[in-house]
């Protein structure tokens, strides 16, 4: 254990891999001291684990309930920790399975929007001139739309459903990453090492992909993490309006909409999924805040 630690924290790394792993380990040590950030990290970790092991963790079927015996049981009922809904389905099991939808939305939006933002931003920043003007004007236009409204309009056009919700959210999510990547690119573009690479005959695509994108990554990742909470809330909002995941899928926003009709007498049906959304987006917010503190070069001692 101490051996690994010494190897990781070595002042004179002998390989690129050792240097990189050492850097990650130092960041982790720094990150670990931030209690709130660790709390956020644990929430996100729990979300991932629950989503992976959902079928084994859920005590009941998330889609089929017993209409005769288990309708609208209050929380802490025998075998139904968080109670049941109007279809007699176990709310806990639905929340556990719903974590898969939430995680899928977040992951897919990140996988779609981040590369697009990076590509647009680095290209604009590297080439400058009219390329920059056109790409950034486009970015500003998308940015000028209120996100939820644009997503609503897209889903309305494409038709309701979780896939279309993901596409719509991705379309609204990339502009901030493009702006950020552009700003970073502008500071790197004129460095000597880029000039040296250019002299060696590297193509623009290679310079952008191999030398500029890696340097933009950390700030973009922080921004993406901070945006995750917003993405979850937008997806839940679309679900609540009936435009996201369709019933009987256990999407958390749609579950709140389902519980809305018997809010007064059976409060738990709408309350529990809201708590789940709140916890997860709080987790992403804390994690993002912590990552920003650790990865922001301006704050490093």
């Amino acid at each position, binding site marked *: 254990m101490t051996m690994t630690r010494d190897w990781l924290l070595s002042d004179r790394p002998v390989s690129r891999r050792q240097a990189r792993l050492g850097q990650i380990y130092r960041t982790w040590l720094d990150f670990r001291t931030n209690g709130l950030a660790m709390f956020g990290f644990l929430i996100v970790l729990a979300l991932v684990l629950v989503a992976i092991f959902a079928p084994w963790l859920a005590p009941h079927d998330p889609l089929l309930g017993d209409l005769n015996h288990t309708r609208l049981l209050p929380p802490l009922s025998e075998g139904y920790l968080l109670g049941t809904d109007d279809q007699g389905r176990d709310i806990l099991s639905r929340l556990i399975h719903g974590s898969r939808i939430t995680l899928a939305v977040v992951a897919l939006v990140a996988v779609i929007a981040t590369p697009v933002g990076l590509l647009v931003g680095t290209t604009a920043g590297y080439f400058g001139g009219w390329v920059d003007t056109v790409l950034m*004007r*486009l970015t*500003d*236009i*998308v940015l*000028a*739309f*209120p*996100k*939820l*409204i*644009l997503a*609503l*309009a*897209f889903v*309305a*056009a*494409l*038709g309701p459903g979780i896939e279309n919700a993901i596409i719509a959210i991705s379309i609204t999510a990339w502009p901030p990453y493009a702006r950020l990547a552009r700003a970073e690119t502008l500071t790197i573009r004129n460095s000597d090492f880029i000039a040296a690479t250019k002299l060696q005959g590297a193509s623009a695509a290679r310079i952008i992909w191999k030398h500029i994108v890696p340097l933009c990554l950390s700030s973009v990742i922080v921004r993406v993490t901070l945006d995750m*909470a917003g993405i979850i*809330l937008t997806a*839940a*909002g679309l679900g*609540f*309006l*009936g*435009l996201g995941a369709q019933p009987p899928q256990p999407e958390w*926003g749609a579950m*709140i909409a389902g519980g*809305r009709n018997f*809010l*007064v007498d059976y*409060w738990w049906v*709408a*309350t529990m*999924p*809201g708590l789940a*959304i*709140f916890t997860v*987006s*709080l987790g992403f*917010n*804390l994690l993002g805040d912590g990552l920003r503190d650790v990865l922001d070069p301006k704050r490093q001692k």
Partner: protein
Amino acid sequence: MVSNTLGGRRGALWLRKIASTLGTVAVTFLGLLIVTFLIGRVVPVDPVLSVVGDRATQAQYDAAYQALGLDRPLVEQFWIWLQKVFQGDFGTSNLTTRPIAQDIARVFPATLELATVSIVIGTAFGIPMGVWAAVRQGKLVDQVVRVVGLVGYSAPVFWLGLMGLLLFYFKLDLISGPGRVDISYEYDFTPRTGLFLLDTAMQGAWGAFGNVFSHIILPASLLGYLSLAYISRMTRSFMLNELAQEYITTARVKGVPEWRIIWVQALRNAAVPLVTVVALSYANLLEGSVLTETVFAWPGLGQYLTNSLQNADMNAVLGGTLVIGAIFVGLNMFSDLLYTLLDARTRNRT
């Protein structure tokens, strides 16, 4: 004489700044119109069928197809649509069978009133909280303000709305429920401006005023809470920035009372970027209002938009999107210009 020429130069710079901002806004508006138009074209619903019905003959179908201008090139269709939009013609709603512009004008005051009360609440609490947190940086107060803000960032607003209704309306019965005003008070005043708080107050209908107030207070507080989260966070960071400046030290050395240093000297300088933040929050409230209005049956733009969405009334959706988008762009531009106007440093830089 000198000040005169300086003033003239400054004025010219100002005009240039305004011209370039207006240029940007014009391009953004055009983009907004193109995107909205294209969204309207990818709809899987056949616009001809919704006019002629599915039992029409081929001849009738073709006639309607031509009447709608769908046989023309896309660019020409866009041009025709653009001309209509600039005349305030968004088409007719299938749902209400009224012109969409008229519908939007009818529902807009409700949203305006809700957003305005919300931003007042958000600013009135958010700024002092941010200042307080900055002064006590790292202390308990700072942590509490941070957590309050984080909760605001993380909670889904429609869920908070439902929980608020459950607690304050159904259980405690402290406030009035969904809607803007109870039917029993609806005829105590004439809605002249459409802003019910203003209307009732001007007409002296204080009973109705109280009722309107007890309807608006919960949704406005919730939306205000969302902007409070953002405003307090930004206030804190601007204030920290100001409090580290040398003029603060100078003021302390000169013996200026601490409350004056914080609340007058530092806050006055922090107020410049804060104006932008408040304007942006106001724009964001439009977005938050879509979900909040749905929960509170608030007859505003947000509810109109979601109703149209659920009934596949595409013209109305696009009209609503366009109006909200335009207000959003307008507020952004306004905050940009205001920033230039207020901050002496940006004036000479252009």
